[in-house]
């Protein structure tokens, strides 16, 4: 079973991007916060994995849960000290964005400091990380592809079950739908906000750790792919968390495979313009489909299609 490495890496990239975009969308629908700090949270995920592998050895994948926990911790800090007080004050969307922007710059500086620390104390080279050299193959496919695809789908299913089958999940959905009404019937929206930051932050770091298996890791890795994350969540529609994940897959695969197809037809110079692809997707979405993928009335389209067939 041979899978072309382009397709395999594309799937890895797209799965990680789906998790990242899912986190952004979740935070946006739950707390009205468009999280700029997702960039640096993702980079922290990479460095948790890198530190684990370099200092304690083992396979990079065993540090993925740790990356999730660390991201969740970053999310909780952001909620407790920054986002929570602002939400209680009823701050505007732009103010909330600004606060996460400050948090992002703060986290970025801590990453840079940490990298300097690793360089000087442990004589490592954390500014040029290739995690893929620790990867291994399962049935001729890179483990990264299988792990990322499986964990993304697993996480999405788990979260779906959580939101639909548990009491707390229903409370979360109620808070998303109508916060004042949810408060009236006794749902503590603070806990819901906190949960969304735990999940969002954790997924950010997890996604960042996974995406580093196909990218070169450096302190600004998150800032470089943040536009892809934003494009994915915009494509998803910003109000449906599943739309965010779907958008992540579309943007990720378009970046990898669409670019590869273009390279074959136009020439290799097009590879340089890879970061422009998510921007084009974003522009087209905003112009023609401002509600995103989730805004398309899929149900009625399928209905129509079926109806047409019957007649």
């Amino acid at each position, binding site marked *: 079973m041979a899978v072309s490495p382009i397709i395999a890496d594309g799937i890895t990239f797209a799965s990680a991007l789906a998790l990242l975009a899912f986190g952004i969308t979740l935070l946006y629908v739950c707390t009205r916060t468009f999280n700029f700090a997702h960039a640096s949270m993702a980079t922290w995920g990479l460095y948790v994995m890198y530190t684990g592998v370099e200092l304690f050895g083992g396979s990079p994948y065993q540090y993925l849960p740790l990356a999730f926990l660390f991201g969740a911790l970053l999310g909780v800090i952001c909620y407790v000290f*920054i986002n929570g007080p602002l939400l209680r004050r009823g701050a505007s969307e732009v103010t909330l964005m600004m606060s996460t922007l400050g948090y992002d710059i703060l986290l970025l500086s801590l990453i840079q400091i940490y990298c300097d620390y690793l360089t000087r104390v442990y004589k490592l080279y954390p500014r040029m990380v290739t995690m893929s050299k620790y990867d291994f193959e399962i049935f001729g496919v890179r483990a990264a592809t299988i792990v990322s695809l499986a964990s993304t789908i697993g996480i999405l299913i788990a979260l779906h079950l959580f939101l639909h089958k548990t009491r707390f999940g229903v409370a979360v959905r109620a808070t998303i739908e109508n916060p004042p009404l949810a408060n009236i019937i006794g749902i503590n929206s603070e806990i819901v906000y906190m949960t969304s930051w735990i999940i969002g932050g954790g997924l950010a770091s997890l996604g960042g750790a996974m995406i580093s298996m196909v990218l070169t890791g450096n302190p600004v890795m998150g800032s470089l792919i943040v536009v892809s994350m934003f494009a994915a969540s915009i494509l998803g529609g910003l109000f449906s968390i599943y739309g965010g994940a779907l958008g992540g897959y579309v943007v990720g695969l378009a970046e990898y495979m669409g670019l590869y197809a273009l390279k074959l037809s136009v020439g290799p110079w097009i590879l340089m*313009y890879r970061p422009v692809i998510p921007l084009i997707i974003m522009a087209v979405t905003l112009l023609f489909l401002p509600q995103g993928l989730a805004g398309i009335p899929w149900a009625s389209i399928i209905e129509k299609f079926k109806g047409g067939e019957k007649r």
Partner: protein
Amino acid sequence: MIPPIVSLILSIIMECGLFTIVTLSLNLEVGFTGLPQFGRVLAVEVGAFAVGGVAARILAYMLGFSAGAKYANYNYNYRIVDAIEAVLAKNVALCVGYFILALVLAALSGAFIGWLTSRPAIRLREAYLGISLLAWGDVLMWVARNWWPLVGGTNAVHVPDPLSPISETFGGFYRFMVMSFLIFGFAILTYIYLERITKSPFGRALKMHRDCELAASVYGVDLVKLRTKCLVIGSAIAAIAGALYVIYSCTCSAYTFSRVTWTFWPWAYMMLGGTGSNAGVFVGVFIFIIIRTLINIYKVDIAELFHLPFDPIWLEYTLVGLALILIVLFKPHGLIPEKSEPIVSRKKIQEIIGETSGKKGK
């Protein structure tokens, strides 16, 4: 010899002037109009490339040098620019003309890019608008980094110096001094211009748009036109800052213009000084630049004093990030908050209230 403290003060003046222009233009769009402009770097970049990529080429063409793709090739670029500067050093009128041409080109292309970005701004709101503006800021950066005929791609292009007569006759230091004061002068001009604009009926319409769009449209303000006008003016001013920076540094590189330096830092300066207050912008920029310069000068001493196992340069980022968070949390209106300028005085309002409540009593 020139004492180092003099050149230090000059470089502080230069940076303050430069970032004041950028931050004032940001303040016009964010503080007065309420547009989440997270893509300030775009207009600055456009202004810079208009000088480094277009105005310099026009000059090269006029003087009979190759102005095509060869101009930006790093094998030829410095020779062409050296030759141009040799001509410029003897021709003051040409220098003035080139300087004006550069600024006008930058302002025009900035205005054009402002108009372009205003197209999505008509439909989008808050977070959506902020993200799309941020994304547009990145497009040009990627194009400029990879399409070398524009400004050299990964290599920087040199830019002919319109002040070469000064550096030729008096030396490099006097050129630096003149340039610093020139940039600061432009900052003051921008300040006066924006103070006039924001105190005019147009400025009041901007504030009305920020505070309540519905009320603005009820009073007959064309919201689309207003946003377009605001973005065009703001981007043109930011583009002039980019042009001045390129002329100051005599090089133009796609790598100079990063999102953090030209969008996020001006945001921090503006938030510290006070959004919606032009005087506040001056104060915010000044404080931040002083602190950043101090960190830069004493970074070696700081590292030795505290035995830091990292480069203290990153403390700049820590500082900016922390400052942004603390300002948003504890001082959301900044150090010099915007003054409310009621159209009707307080006394008059109290009179009216007194009259109406008196009538109710009867």
